[in-house]
């Protein structure tokens, strides 16, 4: 802790508390790959700003001496990265497995750091940490420069709508604090961030190991006149309202202690509401007036995001959890069809033939996947056609909800533009979704109810699959298999490799003869209703299930 601060606490703790009470809250996500020195940087921030207790520090000292974890733990330098690794397996393996949250405060601000792992399921964890962040901190190894993964990290920050990006060029000590190295990296990064549309980008040279330019300025880089990392974090402007102040009040809970009181409780997702305001309840579209804004301490005149309040309304209209109160002017889109970018977070790929559960604000509904537009390459930003989404893929999809939602584009309002998908069978959270703006040129085709993958599956009793047949007799085997499946009532076709995923996407068993491959069968697809696809193939003849490699 800064000595000055300590003195002040000793002298006048009440004064200190009054100031602390008015601190701002900044949420920071730290993103880095293995060996970028991320844990060391966070450890350095906590340590040098005096937020590490002696018993924690001595535990780390003991562990540093014992393990000399990453080959750098001499008795003189303690391994600060050990401050942040929480789970036993993480300390044993010297890796970070899951998002962890750290807390520290300075004179100016209170910080919540989401510390995300760099390698294991990185996209999933990064998206988790980034979802609530105001600032994204990316680590770049000065010796390696901007890597493809750096571009991915920046893309995820942009995807999750983080307005401020800070890139720490770490390990500057290992390049002799060479200004040219830093300037090069800063230039490349600024160009990339510009393409991503991130409004505020800042590049800082640091050495987490020595602590230079993290909290302490140090003397290593006289050429660098900009702020230290902590100075920057203390001063980066916090945009709470980006000029967007339309009311979005998702009703979370109805408070009804007696017949005379009916309050609609919720956290204001966006905008401002005043007692006396005319509001519209969605989906009913009924108008009414806010009689009072209640809190535990008594009624208040005005409430704004992100306050949790209770609204009482003038008329006895039907409003319940999942509904939304808005002002009459700029309403959200009321729609059961969503175009969205999703981060797929489950081991099991997105299966368009299955139904998922979607949670958006306080509303939960079943949802079908109408269409997978493709997968986005986070390095080139290109959209590539795809039949499904795998773990850590970022895709564009069109969803059809079983109930209408009240949505805004994520770029405009994070709280009413975000959703999660839950697997209806396993109950796992499988995807994070960000709603795209409504298409500028609505086409008449949008109104047509499309045949969904679920419809096809229901009709055909099968999901799609790609079946690759290798070996010299691949073509003959493929035709025999096609015939056998056909006889069994299955929809199968021998197709060229480049068309296979398109056929699979419409629930066809696409058989691809590959005489260029060694003898064998490769399967990529979902089960056929009632029996695993492998068993169907085996019983369809001449395919030895044991030889098949089920991907």
């Amino acid at each position: 802790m800064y000595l000055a601060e300590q003195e002040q606490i000793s002298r006048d703790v009440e004064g200190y508390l009054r100031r602390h009470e008015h601190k701002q809250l900044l949420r920071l996500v730290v993103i880095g790959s293995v060996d970028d020195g991320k844990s060391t940087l966070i450890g350095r921030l906590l340590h040098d700003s005096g937020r590490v207790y002696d018993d924690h520090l001595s535990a780390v000292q003991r562990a540093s001496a014992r393990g000399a974890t990453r080959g750098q733990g001499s008795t003189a330098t303690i391994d600060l990265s050990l401050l942040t690794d929480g789970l036993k397996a993480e300390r044993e393996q010297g890796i970070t497995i899951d998002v962890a949250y750290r807390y520290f405060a300075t004179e100016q601000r209170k910080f919540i750091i989401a510390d995300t792992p760099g390698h294991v399921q990185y996209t999933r964890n990064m998206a988790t940490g980034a979802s609530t962040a105001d600032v994204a901190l990316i680590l770049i190894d000065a010796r390696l420069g901007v890597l493809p993964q750096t571009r991915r990290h920046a893309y995820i920050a942009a995807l999750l709508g983080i307005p401020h990006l800070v890139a720490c060029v770490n390990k500057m000590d290992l390049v002799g604090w060479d200004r040219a190295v830093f300037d090069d990296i800063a230039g490349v990064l600024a160009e990339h961030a510009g393409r991503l549309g991130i409004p505020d980008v800042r590049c800082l040279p640091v050495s987490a190991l020595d602590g230079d330019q993290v909290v302490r300025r140090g003397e290593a880089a006289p050429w660098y006149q900009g702020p230290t990392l902590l100075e920057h974090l203390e001063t980066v402007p916090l945009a709470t309202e980006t000029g967007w102040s339309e009311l979005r009040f998702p009703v979370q809970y109805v408070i009804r202690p007696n017949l005379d009181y009916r309050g609609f409780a919720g956290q204001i997702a966006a905008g401002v509401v005043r007692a006396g305001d005319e509001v519209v309840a969605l989906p009913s579209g009924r108008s009414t007036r806010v009689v009072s804004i209640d809190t535990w301490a008594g009624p208040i005149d005005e409430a704004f995001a992100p306050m949790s309040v209770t609204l009482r309304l003038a008329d006895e209209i039907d409003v319940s959890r999942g509904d939304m109160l808005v002002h009459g002017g700029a309403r959200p889109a009321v729609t059961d069809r969503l175009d969205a970018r999703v981060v797929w977070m489950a081991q099991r790929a997105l299966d368009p033939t299955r139904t998922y559960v979607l949670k958006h604000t306080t509303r939960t509904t079943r949802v079908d996947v109408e269409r997978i537009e493709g997968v986005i390459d986070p390095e080139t930003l290109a959209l590539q056609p795809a039949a499904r989404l795998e773990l850590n893929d970022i895709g564009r999809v069109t969803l059809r909800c079983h109930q209408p939602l009240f949505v805004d584009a994520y770029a405009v309002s994070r709280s009413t533009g975000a959703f999660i998908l839950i697997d209806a069978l396993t109950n796992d959270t499988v995807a994070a979704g960000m709603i795209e703006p409504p298409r500028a040129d609505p086409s008449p085709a949008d109104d047509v109810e499309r045949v969904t993958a679920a419809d096809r599956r229901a009709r055909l009793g099968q999901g799609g699959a790609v079946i690759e047949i290798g070996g010299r007799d691949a073509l003959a085997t493929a035709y025999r298999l096609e015939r056998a499946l056909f006889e069994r009532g299955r929809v199968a076709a021998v197709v060229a490799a480049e068309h296979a995923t398109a056929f699979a996407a419409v629930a066809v068993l696409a058989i691809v003869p590959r005489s260029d491959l060694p003898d064998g069968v490769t399967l990529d697809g979902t089960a056929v209703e009632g029996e695993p696809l492998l068993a169907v193939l085996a019983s369809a003849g001449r395919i030895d299930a044991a030889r098949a490699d089920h991907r």
Partner: protein
Amino acid sequence: MPSPAHALVAPVPSPRRLTHLRQLEAESIHILREVAAEFDRPVMLYSIGKDSSVMVRLAQKAFAPAPLPFPLLHIDTTWKFGAMIEFRDRFCREQGFDLRVHSNQRAIADGINPFDHGSSKYTQVMKTHALLEALRDGGYDAAFGGARRDEERSRAKERIYSFRDRHGQWDPKNQRPELWNLYNGKVRKGETIRAFPLSNWTELDVWQYVWLEAIPVVPLYFAAPRPVVERDGTLIMVDDDRMRLEPGEVVRDEVVRFRTLGCYPLSGAIRSTATTLPEVIQEMLLARHSERQGRLIDHDEDGSMELKKREGYF
């Protein structure tokens, strides 16, 4: 407790910008309401400490003017400080809470105690097993806890909605991703969610809120002359005649207080003269040791909190 005069000042320092405490408050209230809305039988674990006091106040704020839509549950190891139980009963009676108390009766019959069975075994039986038993017997599908992520390393990884399997176990390597404020409360029968509304609060935030809101807390947090013995460098309060003294141990009156509260034979006191909230906070801010240092149960082995949590501890 003196009520700070500035609590009467409007909580919002500048137009339409919440202080960090009010942001945390709004977030916690959202979590409390979300659980109440999505689960059939929630319950709030009430451990009598400062964090529980804050959590209960937040719950009152979330559902006012209605009473809490769930009961409070205290897992009583029967070795809590007498002053805690006194405080619990008076506070719950005054506030009109539906308080349930559960102890592991079989373990009591077996004479399990913190002296003979070691803190680790004792905690497992009297706290973890008792908790799982109470949750099962009550048919609760969600349980609020007052744990904070800044308390301990494995807690830093805990979700706000922490999924527990049929046996109440936590699988830290296989947690559901948790994004924005969209919590996934889907569970199958027998599975439960532990919900942590104070996840993002720090020790200072909790104390600051106690001060700001004049929230009642157990007097043991404030310094007073108390009978203690020094054991392995820790001051243990002799709270009743069940305390076993080792040969050579002398009971002395010392002016001490507690930074965290639990079972008296396992809670280390600190020498202190802090008798007011600002003094307690001042001491905490200048302290060089974490609050859990006084808790003997965390020191059994490296990663002991993680092990306990995997087994179902809060």
